[in-house]
C-alpha cells in the first residue's frame, strides 16, 4: 500500500475541487499592464543619450563661462565664424533654408512597424 492509496479520497476531493474564479476585471487589468500598455515616449537608451549630451553641453558651457575673458572671446569668435562662413550673404541663408526644410520633411516620414509588441 502506497501513500497515494492512503490519500485516495483526499486526492479525489482535490481533483474535484474547482478553481476559484478570478475576479471580474482582473484580466483587463493584466492586459492593460502588458499588451495594451502605451509605449513610452522615449526608449531608455534614448534618454541616456540625451542625458549624456545635456551633461556634456552643461560641462562645456561651464568651462567656457568660467574661462578668463569668456564674454569678449565668445563675441570675437562668433564674429570671426560669421565672416568666415559667409553668413552675411543671401546665398548662404538660402542654402541653410533648403537644408532645414529637407531635414524637417525627412523627420516627418513614417515607416511601417514590424513589431506590435515591444518587450521592454
Amino acid at each position, binding site marked *: 500500500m502506497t*501513500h497515494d492509496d*492512503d*490519500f485516495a479520497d*483526499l*486526492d479525489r*476531493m*482535490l*481533483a*474535484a*475541487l*474547482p*478553481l*476559484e*474564479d*478570478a*475576479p471580474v476585471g*482582473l*484580466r483587463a*487589468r*493584466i*492586459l492593460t*499592464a*502588458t*499588451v*495594451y500598455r502605451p509605449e513610452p515616449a522615449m526608449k531608455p537608451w534614448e534618454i541616456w543619450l540625451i542625458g549624456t549630451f545635456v551633461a556634456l553641453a552643461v560641462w562645456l558651457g561651464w568651462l567656457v563661462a568660467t574661462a578668463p575673458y569668456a564674454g569678449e572671446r565668445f563675441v570675437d569668435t562668433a564674429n570671426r565664424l560669421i565672416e568666415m562662413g559667409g553668413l552675411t550673404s543671401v546665398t548662404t541663408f538660402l542654402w541653410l533654408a533648403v537644408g532645414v526644410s529637407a531635414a524637417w520633411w525627412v523627420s516627418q516620414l513614417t515607416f511601417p512597424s*514590424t*513589431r*506590435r*509588441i515591444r*518587450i*521592454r
Partner: protein
Amino acid sequence: MAAALAVDPPVAAPVVDDQALIDAALAGRSDAFEEIVVRYERAVYNLAVRTLRDATEAQDATQEAFFKAYRALNTFRPGAKFSTWIFTICYRLCCDRLAKRKRFSNDELPDRADPSAGPAALAERNDEALRLRAAIDDLPEKYRTVVTLYHLQGKQYEEIASVLNLPLGTVKTHLFRAKEQLRKALTP
C-alpha cells in the same frame, strides 16, 4: 488529473500549444499573449490567493506576475513549461509580499480577508469544496503552497519542486504532511 483544471478550455477549435503562443507574442501578436492570459489567469490567481490568503493582494500579485512574464518573455527557455515558469514568478512575488507583511507587523500573518468564513462556519454549510478550501487555508504556508501546486499541476512533483526551489524529497515530505493535516481537519 488536476492539471486539466489549470487550463480553461479554449474557445476556438484549434488548440495552440504554449510555445507557439509565446513565439507569436514575441513576433508581435498581442492576441497570442491575450490567449496566454486567458489560459493561466485563473490558475495563477488561485496560487496567489491560496498563498497570500488575501484576494486584493492576490490580484495585485497576479497582475505583477503576468507583467514580469511579459517583460521577460524573450528569456523564456524553449521546451520549458510555461505553467511552471509563471507559477515560479508568481510564487516569488507572493513570498516577497509575505516577507513585507512580516516586516511591518510583529503579529502572526493575517488570516483570510473574510474572517467570518472560518472553517467552523464553512463546515456548517456541509459543502465539501468549501470545507476543503478552508482546511487548505488553515495549513502552514509551506504546506499550503505545496498542496495548491499539487492541485494546480497534478502529480508533477518535479515541477512543484522547481517552482518552490526545493528538493524533490522535501516536496514529497511537505505534501505528505499537508495531506495528513488535511485529512485530520476534514475528519468529522
